[in-house]
């Protein structure tokens, strides 16, 4: 072997013995200041890569990736949203000529034509001239396609209510540790959980969380029985005893006003009982 440091593979068919050109054709076709790829150019590329990586890591550090609440097929009124780079396809389906009975035009027809043309571009635009001015049709079609993709993406993204969507984000979800052994937990589970979530965290589009409430126990009991705002009355059904347990559970778990005064969780039952008799 000419290039290797050691032995020849005599009689071995895998690698031909004899002078073998491993250096490809030189670039005399493009006269100018050529530079060896290894190691000169690679060192510069490495620098570009490092700068790119730093920029990328800044992006990653500045914006934690989003996560919404766990998938729940029953979430009512949730508007589906694909990742941003699919928005232009999604937007296409909103046009009348590409929706309802014509939806095939929007899902397969137009994208199929566009991407099919992209795939076959070298055969559709097969004359030898490479300069954009030598192939005006191809260039104009591509420019139109790029403008449409940008436009459709913009239209689609600007129609999204980002604030409303943020409600589904986990980072906006209130974190609560609930004490499942608390006497009131069972009452909560039976009466309130379906709307306010399994740990008082609320359900987007349904009901708010029950954390840091500006109410005292009496007001909570009143709301449970008589409703407030959009919450209808009579959501709570049960005995007074249970109502007390419920109010205490919500106050302690959510760290409301009363909880601070009352100190430890579940053995504060008597005190809320006292409150009740005062009413």
């Amino acid at each position, binding site marked *: 072997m000419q290039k290797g440091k*050691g032995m020849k593979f005599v009689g071995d068919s895998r690698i031909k013995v004899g002078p073998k050109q491993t250096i490809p*054709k030189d670039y005399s076709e493009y006269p100018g200041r050529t530079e060896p790829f290894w190691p000169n150019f690679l060192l510069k590329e490495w620098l*570009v890569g490092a700068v790119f990586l730093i920029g990328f890591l800044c992006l990653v550090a500045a914006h934690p990736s989003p996560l*919404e609440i766990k998938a*729940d097929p029953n979430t009512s009124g949730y508007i*589906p949203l694909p990742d941003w780079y699919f928005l232009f396809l999604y937007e296409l389906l909103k046009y009348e000529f590409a929706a309802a009975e014509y939806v095939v035009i929007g899902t397969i027809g137009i994208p199929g034509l566009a991407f099919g043309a992209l*795939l076959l571009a070298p055969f559709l*635009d097969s004359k030898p001239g490479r300069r954009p001015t030598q192939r005006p049709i191809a260039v104009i079609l*591509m420019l139109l396609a790029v403008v449409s993709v940008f436009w459709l993406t913009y239209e689609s993204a600007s129609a999204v209510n980002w604030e409303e969507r943020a409600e589904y984000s986990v980072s906006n979800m209130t974190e609560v540790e609930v004490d499942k052994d608390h006497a009131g937990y069972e009452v909560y589970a039976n009466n309130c959980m379906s709307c306010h979530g399994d740990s008082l965290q609320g359900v987007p589009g349904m009901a708010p969380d029950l954390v840091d409430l500006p109410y005292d126990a009496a007001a909570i009991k009143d709301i449970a029985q008589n409703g407030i705002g959009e919450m209808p009355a009579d959501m709570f059904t049960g005995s007074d005893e249970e109502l007390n347990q419920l109010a205490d559970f919500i106050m302690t778990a959510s760290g409301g006003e009363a909880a601070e005064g009352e100190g430890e969780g579940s053995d504060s039952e008597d005190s809320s009982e006292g409150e009740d008799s005062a009413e």
Partner: protein
Amino acid sequence: MLNKIYDWIDERLDVTPIWRDIADHEVPEHVNPAHHFSAFVYCFGGLTFFVVVIQILSGMFLTMYYVPDIENAWESVRYLQTEVAHGQIVRGMHHWGASVVIVMIFLHTLRVFFQGAYKKPRELNWVVGVLLFFVILGLGFTGYLLPWDNKAFFATQVGLEIAESVPFIGTEIKTLLAGDPTIVGAQTLTRFFAIHVFFLPAVLFGLLAAHFIMIRRQGISGPL
């Protein structure tokens, strides 16, 4: 020491020509940003590859925590992001990398297109490139479902409906992807996981190899 080991291996296997074959070529002036700043457009292909490598590495680490079933997928992602040291960075790299790779591949495609670099003899490499583009989009689509959060679930439902609208074989395509003609559920997540981490990466590697071998054989296109 390293040199000795290298020589020992080289003496037996003659590895030098293998890597020399990749390393020894000249970089022409017109693609070198050190000479013409505008030549930075030639970086987009390499940067696309760089982000693909980031995706592969971060993805490998993600699978050390991710659990592909509908009971645990979301919890595992949340756990990774909130409890695991640097978990947020690993998921962040994979999440943002998925977007950046699209941007880079788009810029690379535009560079090749407007320079007419797909013309003879590079037609096949362009076709391989567009197939790479489709594979990357497929990775984006299947990866979106994996965290199993609300946006994942509902977007995938719509995506599968679009697949279903294909004439004649729509339902079959949907069933193949989702595991069921109507339900988006446990089967769907498992299939998307398999497609995302095994099927599409395998195709991606094959296409990338073809892309790079062709570039190496044909050399970069000349100046306009």
